[in-house]
């Protein structure tokens, strides 16, 4: 925010208040809605015909839906990284990014829950988890931790929003009557008194402390869904750390992509500056190197031993059926972004954006590679199984539903940015005031 001291309070408010969709915004929104509707139609087919419309079977019982679930859980972790860790570390420069990170976290966790229900085939049986759930099962832990993380993320989104709601109520002429009613319902009681700020700041600090272990748990438990089963590729004691490092990477990648898009289309160059891309670029390099380290650890050690039971799985990844996808995920998802971002010129907005997109796409395929190849290589040989059970490629219904959930999460972010300020207004004003206060007094002309 190097340009901020020259901005007035009104300028900041006018710049950051939510704006109506332009032509591109409308096209973008309707495209997402169309994808969601097509996915809803595919889901209607799945509900009426059963999971038979998918290409999942006796062996690949976790297909693209669960890959998508792991991806959503991973990207949701960014809320704890940017909001909580940066806030607790007093990294003020990250303030404009907190709400972007939080809304990514909330939308991702909503669709992570939805995709699990979609994968169940019989959604009404979800209730059985609560009626007959066993606390011994990691699936039950996942249900508990996901709902907990969702509530905490919502609170972390809502509490810092209260001062901004007051501003939006004040500038009600710039919003529709429905939105004004919503703002009044959510934040009419905020007066901005010192007592309210005191309680709010304390609550936000408690939230930031609470969300870190919960966020670590959500992804560790998700990794345990795999690691607690004895299968090639999943039987690892390292899975929790491996998943968390990957989650931080994809989350940070998602944030840099969102930063670039919001900066460009909402004209936020004065708030999301090159400095933010420079700093996020450094963080992404560190996280990429960390995830690459865990990947080397996860694949090199088993490959060195090449146990008979794991051989088919590993060779399938390195040189076999899944090799193109595997090397794509490693190179595009980790190695190339490192090579781009490790140089100063690579940490400019556009290269960071490109690296972010590569990371997110690579991460999606990486989740697919974690789930599917293992299921195709069980320890016991596949005997008397139909030929189609030896391979898996999602059906069009699976693709449509998975893409609809991705579009749905983007739609939630889009609508959120339409309704609420995507950069915290009050915090930006406060920080500008603090910066002005800390500046040396300017010399008055004699």
């Amino acid at each position, binding site marked *: 925010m190097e340009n901020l001291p020259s901005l007035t309070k009104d300028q900041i408010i006018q710049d950051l208040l939510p704006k109506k969709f332009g032509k591109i915004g409308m096209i973008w929104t309707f495209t997402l809605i169309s994808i969601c509707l097509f996915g809803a139609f595919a889901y209607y087919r799945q509900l009426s015909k059963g999971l038979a419309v998918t290409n999942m079977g006796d062996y690949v019982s976790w297909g693209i839906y669960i890959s998508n679930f792991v991806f959503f859980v991973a990207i949701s972790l960014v809320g704890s990284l940017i909001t909580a860790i940066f806030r607790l570390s007093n990294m003020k420069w990250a303030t404009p990014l907190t709400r972007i990170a939080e809304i990514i976290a909330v939308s991702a966790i909503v669709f992570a829950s939805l995709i699990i229900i979609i994968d169940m085939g019989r959604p009404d049986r979800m209730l059985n988890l609560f009626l007959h*759930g*066993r*606390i011994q099962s990691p699936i039950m832990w996942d249900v508990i931790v996901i709902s907990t993380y969702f509530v*905490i993320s919502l*609170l972390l989104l809502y509490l810092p929003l209260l001062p901004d709601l007051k501003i939006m109520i004040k500038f009600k002429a710039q919003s529709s009557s429905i939105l004004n009613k919503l703002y009044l319902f959510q934040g009419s*009681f905020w007066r901005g*008194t010192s007592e309210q700020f005191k309680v709010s700041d304390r609550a936000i600090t*408690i939230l930031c402390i609470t969300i870190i272990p*919960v966020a670590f748990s959500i992804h560790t438990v998700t990794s345990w869904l795999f690691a607690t089963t004895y299968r090639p590729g999943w039987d690892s004691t390292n899975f929790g750390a491996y998943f968390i490092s990957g989650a931080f990477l994809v989350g940070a990648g998602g944030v840099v992509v969102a930063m670039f898009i919001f900066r460009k289309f909402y004209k936020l160059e004065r708030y999301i500056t090159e400095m933010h891309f420079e700093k996020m670029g450094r963080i992404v390099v560190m996280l990429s190197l960390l995830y690459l380290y865990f990947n080397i650890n996860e694949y090199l050690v088993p490959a060195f031993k090449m146990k008979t039971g794991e051989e088919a799985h590993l060779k399938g990844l390195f040189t076999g059926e899944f090799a193109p996808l595997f090397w794509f995920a490693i190179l595009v998802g980790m190695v190339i972004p490192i090579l781009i971002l490790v140089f100063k010129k690579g940490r400019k907005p556009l290269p960071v954006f490109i690296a972010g997109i590569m990371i997110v796409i690579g991460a999606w395929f990486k989740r697919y590679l974690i789930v599917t190849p293992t299921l195709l290589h069980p320890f016991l040989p596949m005997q008397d199984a139909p030929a189609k059970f030896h391979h898996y490629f999602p059906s069009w219904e699976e693709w449509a539903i998975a893409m609809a959930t991705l579009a749905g999460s983007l739609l939630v972010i889009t609508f959120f940015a339409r309704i609420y300020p995507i950069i915290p207004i009050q915090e930006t004003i406060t920080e500008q005031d603090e910066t002005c206060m800390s500046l040396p007094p300017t010399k008055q002309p004699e």
Partner: protein
Amino acid sequence: MKKLKINKYAFLLLQFLFFVVINKVSAQEKEEAEELVKLNYFTINNGVQYLILENSLKTGRKIEPLKNKVFQLYLNSNLPENLIGKISTDKNGNAKSFLPLSLKTAWTESSKHTFIAVALGKEDEIAAELAISKSKIKLDTLTTEGIRNVTVQVMQLTNSVWVPAADVEMKVGVQRLGGILSAGDEETYTTDSSGTASLEFTKDSLPGDQKGNLVLVAKIQDNDLYGNLIVEKTVPWGIVVKPNTSFFEQRTLWTTRFRTPIWLLIMAYSIFIGVWGTIIYLITQIVQIKKLGLAVPEKEV
């Protein structure tokens, strides 16, 4: 002499070629497929009679079951009124049929019967035939001075009179999961002129059910005259086995939700209460913020 030697080698070569050709011809013969149809007659506890038809294709040494093949079974002659039933083979090449009530008169009229199988579409050709004599089997037990004895008697119906069936080989034993465990010292027993086979029950330390019951079985298998006869009797000669449920009563990770390990319950609920307690506290803080705000009139701010 040299010429003779050449002739000798030529003779050996001819002999070798002869064997090769013969073997090849014989191998070709073996490769010819032959359809096998076999009828088996069963009587269980002298009450239920049924037939099992086995249908397979023999190619060389390989025998493969023929599935979905339809046959008609007849009693004594392949006339429509003697039809036992129309059956279709399953994936193992087997088909089963009971005797219908409509053939009760024909069945009781004679002591000897012939079962006929005719394949669908080949009605003028008999696919398989099986002649049986009506027979019955009885299993008795007697304990004298602590010695347990088993007696099996086989009778054959001849001119409406039951007469002892001699020289009938059978298995007498205890029904176990994998088959019949001989009750005595011999693998099989044969009836004497009185149609009886007796043996001493020597397997006296076998685990039974929860009441100590064992199932004694006498089984005549594939007999040319009588087919397959099986009789069972439950006797309290086994050791009482009480199922060990202690394994399932433990608190483990793999039991029901009512037997969760205490350590896991403590851990899970402490984390759950800790985190959700914090969330509830934070919600009360929002309520507090609301109260603080509502206490101050809007214009004063």
